[in-house]
Each structure stands twice: as structure tokens, then as C-alpha cells.
């Protein structure tokens, strides 16, 4: 081996498994996130720096995952899924930590963790792995088993209750099923079954969940209660107009009307200050990232990677859509953050882990075919 100068070697190691296009899109989006966060926190640098730390930690995770060859990644599917299910069941034991009427956390002695976050990765991973394993002879039974693999954790999470996460995981699992070629007839049947069971499901919902859905129909019904979030969010977005009120000039934000404005409602802050134009730019950034995700998906070399990449990309889009939809009042408030923009380390980590896999899929192609 010819000895190369140090820096290019380090540089190669650092970036060889990163996708520059995707990195650029993610970088711009996270930068926008920090800018908006600065406004949403009324110029609180310590919160912004904490988010920078979250990003750096998540980027490290992304880098690590991007460098893991896919066959190693595939092997983690079953253990991760099993671990996730175990932890989800653990939440139901006395080790579960109840907060605000929901038991979503697990006390593992040193810290409390949220197993449902792990499942956001583990469920599509498990399903993609399962399909890969049975690729040669896919039958209806396989789809049925995959659906079960999806519904078991979703049911446990919905029971916690954590509707937002349950929906996102359902979506990511459904995308795997869809991309795996689930026949239209079965999908149609599933849809009918879902519609038929809707009234039954409605009764299964917790009161606050029903309330949120009803609130969507008429937020003014409870303007100071549950509808407050939706109304104030819509006011922020609507009053932003075409060009917005200008950075740091959002009255809804800076006069304290917007609830959860650094997390779930950060889009309202952005939208109020940057207006429709800003929204179009933001949608453009998301579209850019999603587009790149689709290209990676389309070029993925194996069944597993195709399913995985497609599911990650579509789930990312679902995050963004659900969040913007709920802030602008077309979806119920389900507690989904705006991906890569909202303040918070956990969702940042989960999302960038996903993008790490995308990059691994994209950069390990040649190696896989050994």
C-alpha cells in the first residue's frame, strides 16, 4: 500500500459513506431549524446550543450507521425488534413511568427510555428483513405475518397511549408492505376492514384522543382548552401572510400565544415569520431530501435495502406532513415533531439513524454484491 498523506485519508474515512447531496439537504434543514429555534426561544442561546449538541450526537450516530455494511445492519433486525418488544412489554410492568396520563417510558435504573422510539427503526427493519428472507417465495401468508409484526408493537404503543408514534410506525410498516408488493385487492380489503372497524376503534380511543379529533372539526368549540393549540397555530400561520412578519417579529410567538413553540408547533413560528414564501422554501427542502431518498431507493441493490430505503424516505415525509398538517389545522394534534427542525434529541437521533441507513444503502451497494 502506498502511504497517502494523512488528511486525505482521514477525509476519505470521514466522508466515503456519506451522501453529499443528502447531507447538503439535511444540513440546510437543520440550519433552518436552529434559526427558527433561536426565534422560538426568544433568543435563548443555551437552548440553541443544546440543539446543536443534539445534532452533533445524531450526526455521529448517522456516520456510524452509514459506515456499517448492510449485511451487518440486516443482522440487527431481529435482535432489535425482539429487544424493542421486550421493552414495550416492560413499559406495561411497574417499571413503566407514568407521566401526564400516559405510560411511555421505561425506567432502566440509570435513565428512562422510550421504547417506542426504538421501534420506529426496528419495525420497518424487521419487516424488510422478513421480506428479504422470504423474497424467493412470497405468499399471502408472508404478508400476513409481516402485518402481524407491525400490528403487535403498534397495538402496544397505542395502548400507552401514544397515538402519534403509533400512527408513524403504522405508516412506516405500511410503506414496507406497500413497497413489498402487497396486492391491491388485499390493500382494498384492509381499507374496508379499517373503515368497518372505525366505530369500534373510535370506542377504543382515549377520551383525549377523541377530543383532539373532534376538535379538528371545530376548534372554536373549546377555544381556551384543547382547541387552543390548533387555533393559535392557525392564527400564527394565517397571520404570516405571503411574506411573513419577518424574522423575530412573530407576535404569536413572541407574545407567548403559541404553545409548544419549540417542539411540535415550531412550524407555526417559522410560518408566521417567513410566510407562504418561507413555507414553499421549506417544502422545497423537504422535497429535495425526499427526492434524494427516492433516488437512493430506486437505485438500491437488494430487496431489503429497497424496502428499507423506501420506508425511511416515506416515513420522513409522513413526519413532515403530519406535523405541518396538524399545525395548519387539517390533522388532529397528535404530538409529532417537525422532522429535523423541532427541538429535541430523541427524534433527531431516530431520524438521522434512518438517514444513516439510507447513506449506507447508497454507499455500500458495490460491497453488498460480493
Amino acid at each position, binding site marked *: 500500500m502506498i502511504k497517502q498523506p494523512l488528511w486525505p485519508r482521514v477525509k476519505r474515512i470521514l466522508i466515503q459513506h456519506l451522501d453529499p447531496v443528502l447531507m447538503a439537504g439535511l444540513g440546510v434543514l437543520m440550519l433552518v431549524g436552529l434559526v427558527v429555534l433561536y426565534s422560538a426561544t426568544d433568543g435563548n442561546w443555551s437552548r440553541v446550543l443544546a440543539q446543536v449538541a443534539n445534532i452533533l450526537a445524531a450526526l455521529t450516530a448517522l456516520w456510524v450507521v452509514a459506515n456499517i455494511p448492510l449485511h451487518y445492519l440486516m443482522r440487527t433486525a431481529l435482535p432489535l425488534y425482539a429487544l424493542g418488544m421486550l421493552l414495550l412489554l416492560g413499559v406495561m410492568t411497574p417499571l413503566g413511568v407514568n407521566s401526564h396520563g400516559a405510560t411511555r417510558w421505561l425506567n432502566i435504573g440509570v435513565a428512562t427510555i422510550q421504547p417506542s422510539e426504538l421501534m420506529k427503526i426496528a419495525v420497518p427493519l424487521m419487516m424488510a428483513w422478513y421480506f428479504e428472507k422470504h423474497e424467493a417465495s412470497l405468499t399471502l401468508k408472508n404478508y400476513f405475518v409481516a402485518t402481524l409484526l407491525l400490528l403487535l408493537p403498534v397495538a402496544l404503543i397505542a395502548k400507552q397511549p401514544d397515538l402519534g408514534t403509533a400512527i408513524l410506525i403504522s405508516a412506516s410498516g405500511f410503506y414496507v408492505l*406497500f413497497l413489498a408488493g402487497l396486492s391491491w385487492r388485499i390493500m382494498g380489503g384492509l381499507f374496508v376492514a379499517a373503515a368497518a372497524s372505525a366505530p369500534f376503534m373510535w370506542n377504543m380511543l382515549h377520551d383525549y384522543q377523541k377530543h383532539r379529533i373532534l376538535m379538528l372539526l371545530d376548534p372554536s368549540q373549546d377555544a381556551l382548552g384543547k382547541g387552543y393549540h390548533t387555533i393559535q397555530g392557525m392564527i400564527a*400561520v394565517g397571520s404570516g401572510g405571503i411574506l411573513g412578519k419577518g424574522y423575530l417579529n412573530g407576535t404569536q410567538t413572541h*407574545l407567548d*400565544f403559541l404553545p409548544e413553540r419549540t417542539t411540535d408547533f415550531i412550524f407555526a413560528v417559522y410560518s408566521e415569520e417567513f410566510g*407562504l414564501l418561507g413555507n414553499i422554501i421549506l417544502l422545497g427542502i423537504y*422535497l429535495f431530501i425526499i427526492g434524494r431518498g427516492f433516488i437512493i431507493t*430506486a437505485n438500491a441493490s437488494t430487496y431489503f435495502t429497497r424496502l428499507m430505503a423506501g420506508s425511511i424516505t*416515506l416515513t420522513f415525509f409522513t413526519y413532515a*406532513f403530519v406535523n405541518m398538517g396538524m399545525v395548519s389545522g387539517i390533522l388532529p394534534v397528535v404530538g409529532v415533531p417537525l422532522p429535523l427542525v423541532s427541538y429535541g434529541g430523541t427524534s433527531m437521533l431516530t431520524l438521522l439513524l434512518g438517514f444513516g441507513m439510507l447513506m449506507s444503502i447508497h454507499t455500500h451497494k458495490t460491497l453488498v454484491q460480493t
Partner: protein
Amino acid sequence: MKRHVELKNTQREIYYFRLRLALGIVFVAVLLFVLLTRFVYLQVVQHSHFQTLAENNRISIVPIVPNRGLILDRNGVVLAHNYSGYTLEITPSKVPDLEATINQLAELVDIQPKDRKRFKKLQAESHNFESLSIRNRLSDEEVARFAAQSYRFPGVEIKARLFREYPYNEQTSHLIGYIGRINQADKDQLEEDEDVAANYRGSDYIGKTGLEQSYEKELHGTTGIEQMEVDAGGRGVRVLSRTPPASGNDLVLSIDAKLQEIADNAFGDFRGALVAIDPNNGEVLAFISRPGYDSNLFIDGIDEDTWNELNNSPDTPMVNRALNGAYPPGSTFKPYMALAALTLGKRQPEQTIYDPGYFNFGGHIFHDDKKGGHGSVNMYKSIVESCDTYYYMLANDMGIDNIANFMRQFGFGQRTGIDIEGESEGVLPSQEWKKKRFKRPDQQKWYPGETISIGIGQGYNAYTPIQLAQAVATLANNGVMYRPHLVRHITDARSGEKTQIEPKPLPLRTIPLKQEDIDVIKRAMVGVNKEGTGARAFAGAEYVSAGKTGTAQVYSLKGEKYTEGHVKQELRDHALFIAFAPAEQPKIALAILVENGGFGAQTAAPIARKAFDYYLLGKIPAPVADAGNTGTKHD
């Protein structure tokens, strides 16, 4: 072969996968389009709507409560004013544990049990999002102490407020009345008129009784508006625009505060009422109802114990006796009876009757107060010596309806229209009145025997002190009657312009009377104060006054002899006195009622003397006035 198939499968597989992926892209595109449409709808189509909502969010209209108008006496002495002070206020809805918060506050500022009680009562009367005072009039030190710790107390604030204060307190309580917190009933009343309701936004207080109530419109002022930028917690960030409030107008009363004070002191410990009027224009110079109450207690909401105490007191301090007390006029009715006799031609001044000490009406004996009688009595003597038999006979000769029709002209049994609300009507007995008053036919009938005691001001007769005062003022003014009124003029707070309230250019009415008849009565009333029942009280007066004493029975003795010492104080007769002075050119006329005061000459007349001495001569009685218990032993 197998490899080939596999390869082919893979290609097909990729083809189908990409087809599905393309559908996914369509799915993404459709949803992105939905979002975009929504944004356009919110930010372009509905923009102005949300803009308004955001503005409303941002801008809060804060009413600025105007300063309440002052109340001054005729000489500019302040009877009601405002001063600024700090209050410590709690908004119950913002405080998780009220009791604990109050306990913690008590470590910083002095909070007495009565403050807690008052707060409890306020809380019961208010919405829990209203800011309620737990302590008023904080010292500067207390303000500083709380300010340093205020971060510990969300929902607790120091507020600068204007407080109403009544310097004369109990002596003017029934005249000035008081303001109190606006309650639900007040709110309902205010909301009947939208403009009025708007003007009371932010106002916590409203006049409840007395002049504070009847001149509420003038005193309140116009509420100002401040547009404030606020945050979601309602905290003001900065002022955007301001329309200053206009202070309420000042009331200048016809009351002479010093006269009020002197006359009130002259009552000593007695309960009662006094109304003094300038007969020339109806201006009320003094308006007293005793006992009064501490009107300052009501401003911040009175605590329950004190309230119950005031209401359950046997002295009924909350009753405005001058306005609502209806008393038999007793012998003070006699001058009017005599005037009626002259006017109707039923008696001549020099015509005499013989008084044996009683009047026999169909076997029923009506006693005269003087044992053995007054002997031969003419009109002059009948008034000066207060001969009952003369008036028993006269009443019998006149008949009830003649009496009622004559007395009605003097305002007896009718509201005077004084500018305080809630005046009582009293009772001017007549056949018609009795028919209305009673239900059973046998009760509805007027019996001639009932007319006899009407002649000496007893029986069904019942008049308010303000009526008695108006009547004597009218008599003093030779039958020209004015509406009694307390407010002389209203001073506009901004322009200083004065609006005269009364007297209206024309008197209320002029009673058709002959001057010579009036002079007969007046001479007799001068005689009362010179040589009759009022002589002792007016001994050595430097002016000529006219008066008439009276005694109204509270307790029916049922044939027993009334001896003052033997009857409990609250069953003693009411003492009355009507008077005016100077007799030739009256400047002041008054009616005095001393509850359970015994003989009018003994307790009521000396009060009149002190009032006249001050009003006509400027004499101020020695500080330790011989309280109430002066005067002679005979009526």
C-alpha cells in the same frame, strides 16, 4: 438457467418495485399539494381574518377607570374624596392553593382575620378570575417587602388604586351613602344600556346608597381606553394608544357640613333624624339620620360579622330615618290643623273653647295631656300650650277628608322628591286611604272617632322627617313650596362649568292661603319659643324663632299614666320639634325627631337651638356639648 430466472425475476421485481415507488412519489406529491393549498388558503385567502385574530390576541383594550367626582358641602368642605393607595390583590384562578398563599403572604404583610373574612366574602361574590383585594392601604414598607418576594406569588399583585373616603363618616353616612363593589344585581342593571355597561368596564365600584347612588351618573365619569400589547398571560408589554378617562363631576351640596356636625353632635346618644331646609329655595342644609354607620367600611366590602352586627343592631343604623322613617307628627301637626281651620273658616283666631281636660266623643273620652285642662283656650293658646282638647274638637268639626285635603298641599304623605333614592311615602289618613289600605269591608270604613286623634297628630298619621321639614319650610315661606334637594350644583370636572340642579326657577307650588291666617299661626309658633313649650330651649336667643314641640306615642299605655321613669327607654315617646328662624325672614326651617326622646321640648328643641345659633349667628357649641340631655321638664 436458474441464475437466468433469478435475474429475470429481479428485473421484474425491480420494475414492480419502481412502479410502487412511483405511486409513493405521487402520494407524496398529492399530499404536498394538499399542504400547499392549505397554506395558500390560510396565508392568502384567509390572511386578513387571521391577521385580525392575531391583532386581537396581541392588543388588549384596557379600560382606565376615571376618578370619581368629589362631594363637597356648600362651603367647599370635602364630604367624599379619593386618595391613592396600594392594595395587595389575588386572582384566585391563578393561585393553586389559596389558603397556603394567604398564609405565606401573611408573613410579608399584616393580614388580619378580618381581612381574610372580607376576602372570603368578596370571593363568594366574584368570579374567580377577578383580582380581589386581600389587604388595602399597604404601607410603603409592606409594598417593598412584597415586591422583593413577588416572584414567589404568581397571581398575586400589588395594585395602585384610588380609594373613596368619607371624612365625616357616620355623620354623613345616610346623606352621602357609600360606594361598594359592583355585584350581580348592579351588573344586570348596568347591562340594560349598552353604553352604560361599556362605561363601567373596569369599574369595580358603584354608588350603593345616598347621593353616591342617586348621582352615580355624574360622579362616575367617563372610562378611558388604553390599547395595550399583551402576551398570552395578559401581561401588558407596551401601550399602543390611550384615550384618557374623564373624571366624574363634583357635587356641591347645599348641606352645611358644620351645621350637620353640630346638629348631629347635639343628639348626644339619641337616635333620630333632623332635616334642615332653607325655606326660600328648598336647599337642604342638614340631613341627619342617627345612628349612622361607618360608611368607609363598605367601600372594600364589609366583613360578614360587622355587616350582621349593623343589620341586627336594635338601633337599626342602616335605616335612613330622615328618608324612610314614618312617625306620627304628634303636636307638631297642630299649627297646620289651626291653619286649616282658619283657611276653611272652621275657627276664628280669637274664638275660644273650654278645655275641661278631656274631650267626650260619644261616650269615649280623649284625654288632654294637662290634668284638669287648659281652661279657656283660643288658637294662640292652643298652639303655645299645645292644648289637645282644642284639636280633638277641631278635628271632629272638620272631618277626616277636609283635614287630608288640606294637609296634602303641604306634602304630607307624599314623596318630597328629594334627590336621594328610596324615599318613603308615609301615611296621610283619609277615607280613600283606608279603603285602599285594608281589605275587609269593616276595616275599610272610616269611623268618625278615628278622626279625633288625627287632630293631635296621632292615629294613622305617619310622616317622614323630610316631609315634616318640607312642610315647616313651606309654612315659613308663606305657603310657597320648593322641592327639597341636597345638591346645589354639579361642577363639570373638565370645564369647571356649574350646572344648577335646584331650585328650579319656579317653586313646586304655592298653596292658596291668606297671609293673615299664616301670620296668626306664625305668631303662635313664635309664642311657643318665647313663652310656651319651647321657651326654655330658646331662652336668651338673639333672634326670634318660631317652633312647635311634639311628642309621638310609641307605646299604648292602655289607660295607665305615662311616667317617663317607669317606661323602658325604647318604649318612651318620640320627641319632635319643628321650627324656623328668624321668624320674620326665615332662613332656616327644620324638623327634628328624637326617637324615645320623651317630650319634644326636652330633647328635640335644644338641638334646634344649637342648629339655629350656629346657622344664624355662627356660634359653635363648646366641644363637650351637654349631650342631648338638656332642657325643661314640661312639654
